[in-house]
């Protein structure tokens, strides 16, 4: 996100804090797609993700006055989204958030083995990205898609900065293993 957009996000939040509905519409228009995609990758259910983003932006409307500007607005939004998504998942008895069950949740992407026949590295990579655990998917998305810094990821996920680096390291390692199983050798691990 550009510095200019970050600055105008701060202005929008100040206007939202004073009850400006139009500012809320602009803010929603600017951020809802990315927030939805982040939520969808966490909860893997379109309806749940839609309900979640309404809830997230309602929180923005209510809490805008408490935003202290210690992080970028987009980082604050993703942190709220993550908290709500994981709280919702924890409430669902059938979706406990350990790696095994998160990894076993049905994924719409092809299995790596299926992809093997497609002989398309890009497609295989996307299939393997979809097969990562929730913890690994989340960190890959935050860094590669949402372009967050080490410090911002640490703030969103609530872990130390060194753990952020280590977690992405292992996510990439797992990705390489999945690719290898799909017949694509990248030389690592």
């Amino acid at each position: 996100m550009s510095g200019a957009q970050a600055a105008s996000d701060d202005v929008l939040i100040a206007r939202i804090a004073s009850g400006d509905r139009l500012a809320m519409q602009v803010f929603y228009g600017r951020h809802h797609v990315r927030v939805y995609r982040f939520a969808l990758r966490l909860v893997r259910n379109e309806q749940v993700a839609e309900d979640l983003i309404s809830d997230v932006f309602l929180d923005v409307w209510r809490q805008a006055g408490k935003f202290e500007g210690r992080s970028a607005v987009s980082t604050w939004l993703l942190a709220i989204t993550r908290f709500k998504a994981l709280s919702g998942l924890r409430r669902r008895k059938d979706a406990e958030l350990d790696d095994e069950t998160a990894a076993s949740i049905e994924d719409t992407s092809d299995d790596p083995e299926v992809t093997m026949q497609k002989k398309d590295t890009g497609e295989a990579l996307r299939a393997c990205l979809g097969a990562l655990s929730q913890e690994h998917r989340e960190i890959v998305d935050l860094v590669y898609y949402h372009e967050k810094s080490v410090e911002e990821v640490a703030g969103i996920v609530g872990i130390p900065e060194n753990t952020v680096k280590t977690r992405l390291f292992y996510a990439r390692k797992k990705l390489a293993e999945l690719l290898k199983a799909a017949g694509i050798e990248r030389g690592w691990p």
Partner: protein
Amino acid sequence: MTAAHDQLPGGEPDAIRALLPWYANGTLGAQDRRRVEEALAHDPALVAELAAIREEAAETIHLNETLGAPSSQAMHKLFAAIDAEPARRTRLSLSARIAAFVTALSPRALTAAAAAVAVVLVVQAGVIGRVLVEQYGASGYQTASYQPSKTTSGTTALVRFAPEAKASEISDLLASYHASVVDGPKAGMFRILLGDKPLPNAERDKLIARLQSEKIVGFAAPAE
């Protein structure tokens, strides 16, 4: 990639590898970016890994972009909930609150307040005049833009702080170097005074090199 790479990020080479995804997404600070670029210049394996990371990033973006967007239902639900919220007490700015206060005063109270303000202004002018006479004696007239030359007997340096540096971190850094800001920012640079006595060139260069290696310092150089 070698088997040695199949480890937790630990030593310097692995620490650099662990930074590559953030080098690729452009969010590293100046100092880390320089470290990665220096390592890339000498290690072909790192260059290959960076290419793999860029490929992963491109496919992650592709994957996310195919996820579509929420339906308009989500927006309708949100704004229905917002409209159902209790009316918010609009917080007025300070100037708006002062204006509201003045408007509410009766003409008599307004006259008394204006007189009180006039008295305060006269007393304030007297105090300022006395302070000036005591400070400059009969040294005569000086323009408002006149600044006595600063007697900076310490070592001065030009510093640019990292964009992500917090005010408290800058303040702690200055305290740890017994330094103070004497000018700036000009073109993003501050002129800082280090210590209270001039240092020999070798010692000064060592001090500034140490300053340059600080996490929150993007650039540091001796000031002429």
